[in-house]
């Protein structure tokens, strides 16, 4: 999986709308293309994919349901809601959106959704009910978004639609460095929790018998999952399917459920998958760039369906 990631990363840096021979001495323009355009984009796509994969894994473990993911649970919807609020009111008053404001708006929305889910988690004991509640939170955020869009001008609507498709086209240092640091902090936190997560996966009673504070662990899983997806949403907009498809795929491929092995695999696979989708999005119809969510759904959804069909067939045979 590491080799796959390195291969895809190499292609991401080497290939683009302009032909650059990376094995030859680079001119000033070529250097700018490689180091200022392709590399920040490659790095951001890779760490974002890793973050989304780990985030999806945490949610799927928490809810014990393979369809749980940051997109499904309303975290992306919350980010979109606060983003449209910011866009509509700031720009309608003649002001300008700044990158910092966009990041803060996305973050705030994602964490707001997380807070609502957390509040619900203290009251709702059933995981399946909590999953539905999370989906409802997403619907509420979407309804608020649509309500605000009704009064927004056409340019804001178009821009919001573009943002909501997700993408890494304007990735640049040092913003990318900040995203990398934040995501690494989040992933490090998840890594620290890998043993208790492993115990939790065996059952809550089993985990409690080993001395795990199950409620505390659940709280941290939600927080870290939301944090990781909030960072990605802030820098790249909502990116769908990576959080659902990659954990599913990795578990099937490596046939391991130990978090200490699974988490690194998810990081590598999430990074590779997102990088691959980003390459397709920017090169397939260059200079027109496809929306990232379109590509991730195009590749991710059939994979999930295929695996589910295989799983159902296996269960029926049993």
């Amino acid at each position, binding site marked *: 999986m590491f080799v796959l990631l390195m291969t895809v990363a190499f292609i991401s840096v080497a290939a683009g709308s*302009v032909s650059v021979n990376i094995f030859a001495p680079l001119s000033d323009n070529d250097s700018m293309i490689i180091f200022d355009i392709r590399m920040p984009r490659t790095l951001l796509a890779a760490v974002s994919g890793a973050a989304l994969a780990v985030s999806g894994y945490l949610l799927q473990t928490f809810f014990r349901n393979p369809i749980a993911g940051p997109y499904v649970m309303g975290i992306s919807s919350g980010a979109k809601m606060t983003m449209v609020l910011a866009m509509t009111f700031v720009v309608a008053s003649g002001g300008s959106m*700044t990158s910092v404001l966009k990041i803060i708006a996305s973050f705030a929305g994602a964490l707001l959704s997380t807070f609502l889910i957390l509040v619900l988690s203290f009251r709702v004991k059933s995981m399946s009910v909590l999953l539905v509640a999370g989906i409802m939170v997403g619907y509420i955020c979407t309804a608020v978004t649509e309500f605000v869009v*009704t009064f927004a001008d056409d340019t804001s609507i178009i821009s919001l639609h573009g943002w909501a498709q997700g993408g890494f086209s304007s990735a640049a240092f040092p913003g990318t460095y900040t995203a990398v640091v934040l995501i690494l902090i989040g992933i490090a936190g998840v890594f620290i929790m890998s043993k208790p997560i492993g115990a939790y996966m065996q059952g809550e009673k089993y985990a409690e018998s080993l001395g795990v504070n199950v409620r505390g*662990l659940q709280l941290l899983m939600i927080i870290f999952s939301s944090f990781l997806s909030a960072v990605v949403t802030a820098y790249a907009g909502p990116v769908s399917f990576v959080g659902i498809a990659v954990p599913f795929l990795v578990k099937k491929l490596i046939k391991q459920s130990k978090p200490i092995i699974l988490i690194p695999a998810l990081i590598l696979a999430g990074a590779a998958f997102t990088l691959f989708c980003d390459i397709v999005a920017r090169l397939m119809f260059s200079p027109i*760039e496809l929306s990232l969510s379109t590509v991730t759904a195009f590749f991710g959804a059939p994979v999930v369906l295929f695996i589910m069909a295989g799983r159902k067939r296996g269960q029926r045979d049993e």
Partner: protein
Amino acid sequence: MLRFFNNRRKINNLIITWTLLTCISLCGCTGGGSFSVSESENTAENVSQDTAAADPTEESSETVALQVTAVRENAAATEFSITDYEGGYSSVEVSDGRKYLIVPEGAEVPEDTMGMTVIKRPVSNIYLANSAAMCEFAELGAVDAVRFSGIEKDDWTIYEAVNAMESGELIFCGNYGAPDYETLTVEGCQLAVENTMVTHKPEVVEKLEGLGIPVLIDRASYENDPMGRMEWIKVYGLILGKEEEAQTAFDEQKAIVDALEDYGNTGLTVVACYVSANGQIVCTKGGSSFARMTEMAGGNYILTADEDDDSVKSTVKYGMEEFMTVAGEADFLIYDSTIDHVDSLDDIIDRNAMFANFKAFEDGNVWIMESSLYQNSNEVGTIVSDIHSMLTGGGETVHLKKLGDD
């Protein structure tokens, strides 16, 4: 490790520590945002200064200081101002706070540019994401200065742009939200002209400036006065070294508008609208640029300007019931066929049968906009003349067509 998670206090400490770490990192995020903007402005200057420094034909620089000689007075525009300096330098200050120093051909870039983004003449290889400005480039005979388009060939209605795309002199280079940075870099884009849509995508502006490409955000759409919108041709004239041509074009259109002043008000009312995909009636607002043009033509726009409305939107949405109330008695109805294409009265009635009850329909005074007004902002006078012809029933029209005369 498992005992750690048995201890609630330690969990709380972990959360607090992690939150603090995150906040510290976010401070880097905040610094990074502003850092990249200021850094990119300096980069744009440095690109220009390095270019000047690298030119062996230029003399080694003496300090060039900017001394103001005049501040030009605009006839109608409020979103920009032009200041002239000694030595033929000029600056454009836009209402969003961005300032551009236009350096004449062959002149030195001043050591102290006072924080302005430097644009050195002659300018070529322009990336034009603001398609509304192409008409002005065409008017100035400077379409060849534009190398990169933000829209595709089929989306252009200006034939100079269509021809240039067909010949390959003008290439599509990604839209405003996702330009092809690589092509812009390798082909040496010297200026990106964006419209206010890019204010929703500040990261694009930062990225372009980080690559050394100055960004001019055209705020003509924020001008209340239609002649103010057209007056932006002077900005492009200054940048392209075609100031005389820009002044001539502006004066010609102004003369058309001035000639209509003597006719006075006809007392007739006009409404402009189209039907959106979800069935709402999207109507041009009172006080908008088109409403002002109607008044300049001797008509009255049916909707009045709302004094309390600070929004920069130029349209308002209605359900048909309310729209009939506010606009059903308008003498003339102009349907925006460039957004929602219609060829006949039946097409409009198909959108909503209630249109048949409008006074304009009953009187046979339904017109359509045949050409995109936003791509013809250099023809304010012609458009006002068209509206006047519509109101008075005389004269050929260029951008408007009457339905039902076939």
